[in-house]
């Protein structure tokens, strides 16, 4: 039998999966985002057993599996632990045109870092260890999501 596949034009089918979701933010996420939206406040949660403050806040401590009931308001300022300046252009997911920067910020009093965008700073000026502060959207623009914080900028007293 001759090879029936030889000389066959390879066909490619293009498609797309469009899947709407309705993700519950849960009690913890709902409180975090309503406080951010309505009062511009950033809250973390503290595990009393491990004595660790997590932000974003969570309901269960992953270290000891105890429930976390204690809320702690955190100042909108902290230290940049690491960063990257993104040069790839992926408008389908990226929130800004390149170059733009992400950082992980340890807010004062927290034991975990918050990932966010960095702004009001030239890419070449960003260094780990920099003190930064949150810049919030105007209250009327806030929708109760992570982009209610526009970005973190170098701290100015």
């Amino acid at each position, binding site marked *: 039998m001759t090879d029936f596949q030889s000389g066959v034009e390879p066909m490619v089918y293009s498609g797309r999966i469009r899947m709407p979701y309705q993700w519950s933010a849960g009690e913890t996420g709902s409180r975090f985002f309503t406080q951010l939206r309505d009062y511009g406040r950033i809250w973390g949660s503290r595990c009393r057993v491990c004595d660790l403050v997590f932000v974003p806040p969570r309901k269960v401590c992953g270290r000891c599996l105890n429930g976390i009931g204690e809320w702690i308001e955190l100042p909108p300022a902290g230290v940049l632990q690491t960063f990257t300046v993104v040069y790839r252009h992926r408008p389908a997911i990226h929130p800004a045109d390149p170059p733009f920067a992400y950082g992980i910020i340890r807010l004062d009093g927290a034991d975990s870092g918050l990932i*966010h965008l960095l702004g009001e700073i030239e890419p070449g000026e960003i260094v780990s260890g920099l003190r930064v502060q949150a810049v919030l959207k105007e209250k009327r623009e806030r929708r109760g999501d992570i982009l209610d914080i526009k970005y973190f900028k170098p701290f100015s007293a």
Partner: protein
Amino acid sequence: MLDEVAIVGVGQTKYERRKIGETFADLVFEVTNKALEDAGITIRDIDNVVTVSNDFQDGRTISSMAVMDACGAFGKNVSTVEGDGTLGALYGLMRVLSGAFETTLVVAHCKCSEGDQDLIWNSAFDPVYYRRLGLEAVSASALQARRYMDKYGVTGEQCALVPVKNHRNARANPWAQEAMDLTVEEVMRSPVLASPLKMLDAAPLSDGACAVIFANRWKAGRMTTKPVWVRGVGHCADAYYLGDRDLAGVDSLTGAAKRAYGLAGIVDPRKEIDVVEVFEAFGYQELMWLEGLGFCDPGQGGVFTAGGNTLMDGPWPVNPSGGVLSAHPGLVAGLVRIAEACLQVRGDAGARQVDGVRTALAHGTNGLCGQGHCVWVLGG
């Protein structure tokens, strides 16, 4: 666990950027037959199958069921792992260890070219807290690379030694996708993707599949292929949120290695392991993983690599296959490390064979920035 279960057959496709002529099921069929042929058996000798796939990558719900025919699972007990291939292998190994099965076929497939990797990786982030920030695997790994380099003073040039070495090694591997001669300068001059990561610090995207057959002692003794015994295995996971971890740390890998070494009776990996295959999606990761595996102290991966220790003719050749930097078929990549380590122990690795291998290590990672790790110790 010493010598209870052996790997008796392996099969791989050529890894390529775009396998336009084949479906993912075609790739599964190819490697299933190659592994059976390698073991000198037929599908009748396989009593159960573990497939490894990801529905987002395949663009299909319960994608594993779509490859049942291609891997000979019809009428058999078949189950699926959605995660790195090393975890599928771990499940396959346990099925034999349980005594309920004698021979497990583990087969992983992925065609990275068919989906959009940035959209798929962005969907790995928590949709409530983080997804809208637009992070994907390259940006997240860049945050890790920056932290690792800052904490220990590791340089970009030290990280660049890894793609230089691995692409060179790939020249001896007929399955590898990107075999080339590179210099550190060329890596350093390549376009920045997300600082400090550059184009040539990063793995390519690949299409491909890999299969591995496990057998118990009784079955392994009746096969023609030289059995490669699973001496030890360990798995360990860290926190999900990147901000909860020190991204320069390798705690979960240290934990996985400790468990694998404990089962294998390995006290000092530097004295007892002859060749290493790690899952390095970026150059800096190979340095970090060598620290976690105990080949050098924390922060010393750059110095260790710059000393030539991991070259083909060095004391601990790392990724003679060319590693993930030379072919990255997504969640297949960890199973490839096991297949390659197996070939090294058998002495069947062809032009990429390291002399005198008695014990080989294979490593896989799962999740963002090495959240989870799986370590395998294989011996003849």
